[in-house]
């Protein structure tokens, strides 16, 4: 008996030694799995604010509904389907497909509304549970939709600044190893934890009020003139800070799944068009800077018809002799071409480049394109009659407003920017974006002289409808014919535009407005200039009221 006991004891000791030395690692890992729970800690996606710290994109906590089909009795499933389908606004067959799967976890709906969540919670359905997630929401729905863009279901930026700044906004996930009780329930004690790093907040240069006014006025014109598209940019000409940027057609950021690619396109930065008469400011600047003309120098405008090679150039009104100032005020094509011929292609090209056309300005938004400007060696014989009046060239709205700002701010080409700063959740600035001067394009004197001429455009010339009550304004109208598929200029499709700044003597804002294919009226001075006037009026009053406060 004693021997049996000794043998049994030795066997136990041997078994214990075996477990201790050979199985301990495996068994302790199983035990750890049973009483520990690995949880990934989701970081908070950064908020996007306007310049006055009004939120434009925020995260709000919402519930996602999941089911556990394996643990749910088959008898309960029809009742669950019947009650959930109307709340989740889905077809019964969809829920049936999900609930009858042989799985222990299936999503029923992600990121539902608080009302839906409350309604489902009241039902107290067995096998239907909730997980807290965060949903990206946009309080201003359609405001600056193409600029802000949107983040998808997993809080990953998919469009606009949400995508462009995703690395700053998304943050870094953390993790924690929580203890679990015997019922596998998570306890609030963790063995190990790396806290998540929340995403940084982004402060834009956009002013919500100016953005709203710009959108409102652009929308009015877009609808009134049945345009195919439209864009507007409001910018501080001295710094390049964009106060508002809107495009039409737009879309609701909270319903991005229903928007088309056309609605999502940031036309002001991504779309090229022949600028037409607004481009005459470059020729005018070149002529003044090179001291080839003075404001009162006279040019014969051929009574409205001027033949260059086999091409006949027309003015919209037959002008006789006009001064340089009148040529710009009345937007005479023939007068502008004669000035350009006097300068020669090389000088015209040099100033086009100096004003920032034909290359990217480096704006902090996705999709910026450089435009099309050909070198003089590639020009045809009639290019000198086309390029100075904004044909054979292609530019973007952002380039046009940057060029107009050169005149407004005394000759400096400023880099347009839309991100003011990036901050962490404690408000500490991580990155700050200061105004950047790209180059000095023209002299202070030339800019001042051009400002006076462009004031004349609004006071006496083609831009009379841009006159603002209580303020002076300067600018240039443009009515550019669009190219047909066969390469000829269309007589029914136009791009109407107005680029200007206000107040003329001390510019605070520069604005560009373009409307693509407006009809029945298509003149820039009639279609785009009133948009400029209304936006400038409200913006200047708003800025004045803010500075008074």
């Amino acid at each position: 008996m004693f021997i049996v006991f000794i043998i049994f004891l030795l066997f136990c000791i041997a078994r214990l030694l075996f477990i201790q030395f050979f199985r301990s690692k495996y068994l302790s890992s199983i035990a750890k799995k049973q009483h520990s729970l690995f949880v990934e800690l989701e970081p908070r996606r950064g908020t996007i604010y306007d310049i006055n710290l009004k939120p434009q994109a925020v995260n709000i906590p919402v519930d996602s509904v999941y089911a556990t089909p394996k643990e749910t009795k088959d008898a309960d499933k029809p009742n669950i389907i019947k009650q959930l389908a109307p709340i989740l606004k889905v077809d019964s067959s969809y829920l049936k497909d999900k609930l009858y799967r042989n799985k222990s976890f299936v999503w029923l709906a992600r990121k539902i509304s608080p009302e839906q969540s409350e309604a489902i919670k009241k039902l107290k359905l067995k096998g239907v549970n909730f997980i807290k997630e965060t949903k990206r929401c946009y309080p201003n729905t359609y405001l600056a939709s193409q600029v802000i863009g949107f983040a998808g279901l997993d809080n990953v930026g998919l469009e606009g600044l949400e995508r462009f700044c995703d690395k700053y906004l998304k943050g870094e996930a953390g993790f924690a190893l929580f203890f679990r009780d015997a019922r596998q329930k998570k306890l609030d004690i963790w063995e190990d934890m790396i806290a998540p790093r929340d995403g940084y907040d982004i402060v834009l240069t956009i002013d919500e009020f100016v953005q709203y006014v710009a959108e409102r006025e652009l929308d009015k014109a877009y609808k009134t003139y049945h345009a195919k598209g439209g864009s507007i940019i409001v910018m501080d000409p001295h710094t390049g800070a964009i106060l508002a940027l809107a495009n039409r057609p737009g879309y609701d950021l909270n319903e991005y799944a229903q928007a088309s690619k056309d609605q999502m396109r940031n036309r002001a930065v991504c779309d090229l068009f022949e600028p037409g008469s607004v481009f005459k400011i470059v020729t005018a600047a070149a002529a003044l800077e090179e001291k080839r003309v003075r404001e009162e120098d006279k040019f014969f405008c051929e009574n409205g018809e001027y033949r260059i090679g086999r091409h006949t150039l027309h003015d919209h009104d037959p002008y006789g002799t006009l001064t340089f100032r009148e040529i710009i005020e009345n937007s005479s094509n023939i007068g502008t071409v004669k000035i350009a011929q006097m300068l020669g292609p090389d000088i015209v090209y040099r100033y086009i480049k100096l004003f920032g056309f034909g290359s990217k300005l480096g704006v902090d938004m996705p999709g910026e394109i450089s435009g099309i400007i050909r070198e003089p060696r590639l020009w045809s014989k009639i290019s000198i009659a086309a390029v100075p009046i904004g044909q054979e060239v292609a530019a973007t709205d952002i380039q046009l407003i940057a060029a107009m700002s050169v005149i407004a701010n005394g000759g400096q080409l400023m880099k347009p920017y839309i991100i003011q700063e990036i901050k962490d959740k404690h408000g500490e600035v991580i990155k700050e974006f200061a105004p950047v001067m790209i180059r000095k394009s023209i002299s202070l004197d030339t800019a001042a002289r051009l400002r006076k001429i462009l004031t004349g455009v609004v006071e006496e010339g083609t831009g009379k409808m841009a006159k603002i009550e209580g303020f002076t304004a300067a600018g240039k109208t443009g009515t550019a014919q669009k190219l047909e598929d066969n390469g000829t200029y269309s007589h029914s499709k136009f791009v109407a535009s107005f680029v200007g700044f206000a107040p003329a003597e001390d510019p605070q804002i520069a604005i560009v407005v373009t409307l693509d294919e407006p009809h029945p009226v298509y003149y820039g001075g009639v279609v785009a200039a009133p948009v400029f006037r209304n936006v400038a009026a409200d913006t200047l009053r708003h800025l004045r009221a803010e500075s008074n406060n």
Partner: protein
Amino acid sequence: MKLHKFLLTISSVTLISLLYVHQQTEIVRLAYVGEKKTVVFQELLDKNSILRYNIGRSVSLVQLGSKISGSANYEMPGTYRLVKLVPSRAVSRAGAGTREKGSFLARFFSVKTQAEAKTLNP
């Protein structure tokens, strides 16, 4: 003596073990309490952020604009139309001085600045 020492050691070890077990159960109990409080706290925080979002959305220019645009043509008023309701420093200081002076004199000479009202037929 040896037995006494043995019993003392056993008692100490048992006591320490019991304290350890008690400590562990307390930790778990507090974890449950903490978990419950976290859920309530989180729920309140969530409701707060939803509420703030809804308020922000309700007072956004888009909402206000769409409501106003149906009834009137809203535009930013010019400076000449704005009236400041904040009194200037000089006026407010003068006003405060008069009030103080009046009440001081009234107190000193027991002269009321206003006739006292009395209920005759209660």
